[in-house]
Structures are given as C-alpha cells and as structure tokens.
C-alpha cells in the first residue's frame, strides 16, 4: 500500500472541517427548507471525509464502516426530511422555514421577517424560434386551508 503520512491526513481533516463549517452556515442562514436539507447533507459529507481519512491513516476499515453507517443515516434522513418538506409545503404553500415558529414562548410575538419590498423577479419569457402560448388561468384558485391543523381538527 502507498504510505499515508500524517500530512495527508491533515489535508482530509482540513477539507472536512471546511465542508462541515460551510454546511452549518447554510443550515443557519438559508430559509429554504430544501437548501437547508442540502446543507445538512454537506455537513455529513465533511464528517465522512474526516472518518475515511482517519481510517486510512490507521490502516484499518473502521473509518469506512462508519462512513457506510453515515450514508445509511443520510439516506434515511433524506427520505423522512423530504416527506416532511412535502407535508409542510402542503400546509403553507411555501418552503420558508420561518413560517414554522409555533414552538416558542407563549408570550413571545411571532417572528416577523422584514418584508422585502420588491416583488418576485419575473422570469423572462423564453425567446426562440418557437414561442409557446401562455395559458390564462381557468377560474379562481380555490382557497387553500391555511389555518393550522390544530384548528382544523375541531
């Protein structure tokens, strides 16, 4: 086997630390549930890198076995998280995580994100030789139940 000195291990650890920190930053600052999920996966990637490096440094399989377990957990997390995102989106028609803040002190006013004045940027219509007809909406969109599920159960 090719030698794997301490300096090489250090490389892996540094890159793993960077990925881990960036993933946490994403998790903390991004409000899109899907991006938060991706950030969490990135943290796992950084950890996996570290473990593989250590395993190689010590010349045994344990690091890789840990990583396999991490992969399993990541897969489980992905399935459950995406299912949850689906449900949450159905409830609020939005992927914004700040809308979910019921788990707070009862005396505390709900968090208000400072409103962004500008409207959603419109996507420029695709220019090309063919242009597809823009369909107008058929009738009004039915009202989504936006009240919390606790109230709707009554």
């Amino acid at each position, binding site marked *: 086997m090719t030698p794997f000195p301490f300096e090489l291990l250090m490389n892996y650890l540094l890159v793993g630390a960077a990925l881990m920190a960036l993933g946490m930053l994403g998790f903390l600052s991004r409000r899109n549930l*899907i991006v938060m999920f991706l950030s969490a996966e990135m943290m796992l990637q950084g950890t996996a890198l570290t473990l593989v490096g250590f395993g190689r440094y010590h010349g*045994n399989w344990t690091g890789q076995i840990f990583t396999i377990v991490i992969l399993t957990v*990541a897969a489980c997390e992905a399935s459950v998280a995406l299912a949850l995102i689906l449900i949450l989106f159905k409830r609020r028609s939005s992927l914004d995580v700040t809308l979910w803040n019921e788990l707070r002190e009862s005396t505390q006013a709900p968090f208000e994100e400072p409103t962004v004045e500008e409207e959603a940027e419109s996507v420029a219509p695709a220019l090309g030789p063919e242009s597809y007809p823009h369909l107008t909406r058929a009738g009004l969109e039915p009202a989504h139940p936006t009240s919390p599920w606790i109230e709707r159960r009554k």
Partner: protein
Amino acid sequence: MLEKRDLILAIAVIVLGATGTYLMLPHRHGSAKPRRVHLIGAVLAGLALLLFATFWRAPASAISSLFFYAFSLAAVAGGLLTITSRNPIHSALWFASVVLSTSGLFLLAGAQFLAAGTVIVYAGAIIVTFLFVIMLAQMEGRAPYDRAARAPGRATFSCFLLFWALFYALLIVRVAPHPKGVAIDTDNERLVRSGEIASSYGLKADHPARLISELARRDTLRMDDISKRPKPHVAGLGEALYTEHLISVELAGTLLFVALIGALAIATPKLPIRPGDPRPQPLTKL
C-alpha cells in the same frame, strides 16, 4: 507550536472567507447592486480558498497531487456555492459537485467502494431533490425567502468561529516523535505503537480503552494482511463489515426500513378537510 506565518495565513483565510461568504449570501446590502456585491464576495472567498489551499501538503506523486487539489478545491468551492446560490436548483447542482468531489477524495484515500456508494446514493437523492425543487419552488420567479438569508451576519460569525476553532486545533497538532527517533511511516508500525501506548499506560486487560486499541489491531479490521500485502478492497471491507460490525449492518438495515415506513406514513396524501365538509363521525358511534 504554530508558526507566525501560518497563524497570519490562517487568520487571513478566516477573515477573507467570512467576509466573502457574508457578501455572497443572498440578502440586500443597502442600496448596492446585488450582482456587484456578489462579485466582490466571490473574489474575496476565492482568495480565501487559495490561501486555504496553501495549508494542504501535496501527496508524493504528481498525479495524486493534481487530483487531490482539483477535488478539494471543487469540494470547498462547490460547498460555498451551494449555500450561496439564490436558486435552489443551482444549489442542488452545486451540491452534486460537492458529492462528486468528495467521492474523488474517497478514491484518493483508498475507499473505492465508498466512492461508488456515495455517488450512487447521492445521485438518487439529488435527483429526487431536483424533482422536489421543480415541483414545489415557485416557477414564476425566485421566492422572497430565497433572496433574503436569515441573520447572515450572525450565522457567518458563529460558523466561522467554529471553523477557526477547528482550523486552529488541527494546525497545532504535531505527530509525537518515535521514542527511538525513527519516523513512523507504515500503518503497521502505527498500530503497534497504539498498542504500546495502551500497555505503557498500564491499562488493565479489561479496560475499555485497552479493548478498543486491541480491536483496532485485529486482523480482520486491518487493511493489509499478515504478510503486509494490502487486502483486496471490497473483500477486505466486506470481511470487516460482516465479522466485526455485523450488528451495525443489521441495525442500519432496520433503520432504513423504519425510515421507509416513516416516510410513507408522513407523506401519504390525506384528503384535505375543507370548510363545509361533513364532519368525521366520532368513533364512539360505532
């Protein structure tokens, strides 16, 4: 201890990286044009990344060095772009690059099976995520919550503080010199050494730390066999997995199964209750 040059460089990495990332995160900086700010942030972050790369030591062979630098840079840059992209689709694509780069790094560390596994698993995950984004994200334009990060300054500060702590901790690590003055280079010597440490501390035979160090030296867990030749990769991993970590494998399987059931239970569409619907009858009526 840490040399002064290294320390200055490390601080520069942290400061530049934090500033760049902060500028790149999606939110408004006063009346400045977002695109320009983004560009400045990207330059700063790139600078930090290059400085960060100076801390890496090139492997012995040139090919390995090339691949290592390419994968590492791609991984970190991809991670940066994943979290700063305003469009979730771009985020997902950049995350794919992170996964691929990580797999490359796995290959370089001699973990071929894992590299393949990661690509396969995450490819599936990424595709599903992609579908979700297309399905859920408003296609009329980018949503307000994608254009305004939540408390970016505070988040950047705490994360880079954590990164600084990890970075510093790694930089000050030095390998202890061999007592006989001989450089420890081979894996086997390292393992023998860890066993010596355990016995030199006078640990009892049934002490947990002693047991763990003994475990690390078992033949089934070693990457090379008795005659110091490397084991065939998948066969070696499989041997370790199904002898020493059999219960972990079983547990992992169970976990996957439970997660499958959970996901189904959560995500199964239920009939929405709308105002005017007949109320569901209480079960006591039965």
